């Protein structure tokens, strides 16, 4: 075992200090260290997208980063988006459009969509689908997820007018 490092990571707005082994994946730190089990771990090699979080505002695979690399940085997980009874617009849209069945991929879908909505116009369904291509869902066939994101894009365009 290599020696542990002291880290201070801001997670969902609160600073968490911990001693971690360098090899501890950020995903495992969030789940086992902080009990934030909203971040799901699927493939552990960057293919499925279930563990996607935001690192300093940009989406990142938490299975492809070490917790020690998040020292001094800000991480947002799905828990930051809302709570039952207080969901954000994207979560409400997923709910309204039946964009989840088993829910395993949902945290990654939500965090990916959050970043996509900030960075791309998402003017077409093809663009939304391309944006979701790094997130696997085995239940929905993606149709309802695309619809849910489309609705958020449309609402946003309506608000801007």
């Amino acid at each position, binding site marked *: *075992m*290599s*020696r542990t*490092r002291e880290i201070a990571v801001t997670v969902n707005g609160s600073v968490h200090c911990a001693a971690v*082994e*360098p*090899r501890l*994946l950020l995903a*495992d730190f969030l789940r086992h260290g902080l009990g934030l089990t909203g971040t799901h771990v699927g493939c*552990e*090699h*960057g293919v499925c*997208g279930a563990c*996607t979080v935001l*690192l300093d505002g*940009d*989406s*990142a*695979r938490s*299975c*492809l*980063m*070490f917790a*020690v*690399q998040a020292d001094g940085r800000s991480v947002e997980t799905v828990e930051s988006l809302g709570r039952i009874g207080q969901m954000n617009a994207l979560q409400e849209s997923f709910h309204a459009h039946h964009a989840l069945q088993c829910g395993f991929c949902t945290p990654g879908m939500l965090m*990916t969509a959050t*970043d*996509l909505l900030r*960075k791309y116009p998402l003017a077409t369904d093809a663009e939304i*689908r*391309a*944006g979701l*291509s*790094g*997130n696997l869902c085995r239940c929905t066939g993606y149709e309802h997820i695309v619809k849910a994101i489309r609705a958020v894009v449309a609402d946003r365009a309506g608000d801007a007018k």
Partner: protein
Amino acid sequence: MKPPAFDYVVADSLDMAAAALAEAGDEAKIIAGGQSLVPMLNFRLLRPSVLVDINRITRLAFIEEAGETIRIGALTRHFQLETSALVARHLPVLSCAMTHVAHLAIRNRGTIGGSLSHADPAAELPMLALLLDATLDVVSAAVTRSIAARDFFVEAMTVDLGADEIVTEITLPKLPQHTGWGFEEVARRHGDFALAAAAATLTVSDGAITQARIALTGVGPTPLRASEAEALLVGEALGTGLTARVIAAVRGAIEPETDLHASSDYRRHLAGVLAGRAVSAAWRRANEGGA
């Protein structure tokens, strides 16, 4: 699926990174974006004793114009390349290629230096470095040197880079005047590694091609330039007959592997089709005014 134990060094400067690598001998790996390295660690395909993290050497992340070239720091993330106005203006073929590189969460982290050093045989950036006659700057504690992309890619996932060396910067000549470009890729799903991909640039003067570059990926252990096909184009105007000969020359120059995703014959066929499309698009753009 958990990585083996390793020691971890955060390098705040290039000197510190080079010193850490020199001290560790062959046992160290550099971690930048980690988007290829961490899966290999999780699978325990690699067991480095030390990881040298260069993510905090922020001066390695830049995209700059320098005379007739664009200089790109090795730590520049794929998303920065994808959205750079300088790249879009002077190297539009690279902007286009970036939209095919993996997925947003990976483009946010992955770096150009990492992608070139990792040298996956089906990756886009090594092909683009070869197409665009890139030069890589490399440093170690002992020496500083430059190496041309055409000499850098040695074998699948093997490049001319010592265990103690770090890629610091990539220099790409801007596309010349009256140059058109094309980029074509087929992958199993958007953002996956290419089954095959082709990129081309054509510089045209008085209706004839003065410089032709065609690069391919996914069809051999390293990306490659289709030099015979390029030679066919110089001095000519592109027409149906010439395109067919270019396609035949591309297919004749490669010996792709068969794997789970595609047979060798299919990849050879595909590479020809994609090269034909890329060259046609380059010809069209060059005659529309080009970059």
